């Protein structure tokens, strides 16, 4: 699954790093470094991190009702 963190919003509370350490790690006191791609086996943990983030800075695929896209758009030239 694809994910992105809005690091302007992130304030280094590190909840995600406790809940999904395979994906989110802290560098120093408040810098978050994350993997923008998480394997499906970590989906539950990422979902918990998204929900627990005090500033709602994490966006991930397929975790909210709005999203109905495939993982990747279709090939060039065709509709997605």
């Amino acid at each position, binding site marked *: 699954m*694809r994910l992105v963190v*809005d690091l*302007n919003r992130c304030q280094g509370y590190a909840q995600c790093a406790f809940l999904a350490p395979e994906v989110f790690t802290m560098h*120093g*006191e408040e*810098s978050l470094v994350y993997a923008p791609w998480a394997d499906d086996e970590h989906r539950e943990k990422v979902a918990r991190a998204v929900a627990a983030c005090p500033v709602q800075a994490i966006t991930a695929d397929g975790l909210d009702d709005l999203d109905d*896209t495939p993982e990747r*758009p279709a090939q060039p030239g065709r*509709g997605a």
Partner: protein
Amino acid sequence: MPAEEFHEWLRREGRIVVVGASLAGLRAAETLRARGFAGSLTMIGDEPYPPYDRPPLSKAVLLGQAAPDRTDLPRRRAIDATWRLGVAATGLDLAGKRVRLADGEEVPYDRLLIATGVRARPWPKEEEAQLDGVFVLRTRDDAVRLHRRLKAAPRRVFVIGAGFTGSEIASACRQQGIAVTVAERADAPLVGALGGVVGAVAADLHRDNGVDLRTGVTVTGLEGDSVGRVRAAHLSDGSVVETDVVVVALGAVRNTDWLAGSGLGAGPRGVACDAGCRAFDFRGIVTDDVFVAGDVARSPHPLFGYQFLSLEHWGNAVAQAEVAAHNMISASSDRRPHMWVPAFWSSQFGVNIKSIGVPSMGTEIMITQGSLAERRFVGVYGHQGRVIAAVSFDNTRWLEFYQRLIESGSPFPVEFPTVDRRPEGRRPVPADFPDPSLPTHGPTVTLSGYSPADRRLVFTPSRPSPAPSAPHRPTDPRNPS
């Protein structure tokens, strides 16, 4: 057709073309659909990849925590678009409302969004730039190549330019035990973006983490061996650094070449647009069917004297794309201005650096919390008696407070008694930015154009000249001599 009827028709069956399939383009497309746009949507991108995120390329990817080809952006919603990926836009016919593509095809539009962003500024000497082992870092392909080379245990990495990207690359190398030399023309890293006072802290960060930092020098040449691999870098102070990997981190060039001759107000500084993201043509007349968002845009901001700001900021790309998309399908009375307060982050050597506002407009800086020596502080920048920006090193939770000071035009020097005050914070000192009339590659914010309050054009060459470096003079950025 009355305006209201036209916009109804546009939302129902209009054709919208987005040139630039990265962060701004994607978020604009999602916003269009979220606002009920039901017509046809075409996404044009010169790279063959679906929209991916770039900040991780100089952070998680170089640290080995993420694969360079796995930074695709998550989707907020389905956009039901026709994707034209791997095909660059090569021209624009404003009168005929068509975008020309590299494969000869023409795509007609009723509304166009230009979100072509920037590209890495290449090393100016083409033959040297071609040497094996010389890299830039902007795209996924750049990251794949650099990542592969860094994994092959280079003897030394040589980084040209100590802006944010150059500093992040140096940080990632050091974390993996790779020897690094960084060459910077200014007296310290990050000087163009944050000034000399904060730059001195960044210089200590580099050196304490084992970076061989050379400041006040320029790179005069890159030397290759007999089979075309880079072997050494020559510096203006006469020294030679042996290296097998060179990363050119000299900032970015705006992708406006394809608009040459189109009649739009586009050039090396980007595409000028109004606060509602509508592009200006070269006569200074605003268009009503061409919109701009992201790194390639420059638009006037009321908080900063209506100066035209170009912001190479992730958050700006998202915010401006949302405003542009809304305005593209709205009648004029429903349109919104793009009034995002500039915000930026960088992560290097384990320190979280963030800024809010436009630091390079500041003439003075005052450390209001923490201390420079501890590398944990907030610095506030003042401009004509008011707070214009703030920077934090490992102190991000305070920035929102300072954002409110910027938004409300609070007086500078700041008057509140601080909770964590140290001797160095008692008075403002010159922020020590380089003279903006000198060529530079550092700043992530460019002040340009003319403002109603101060009608002046300042010419800043778009490429760094290989002129010998002069030490910075702490001049007022608004009054270049």
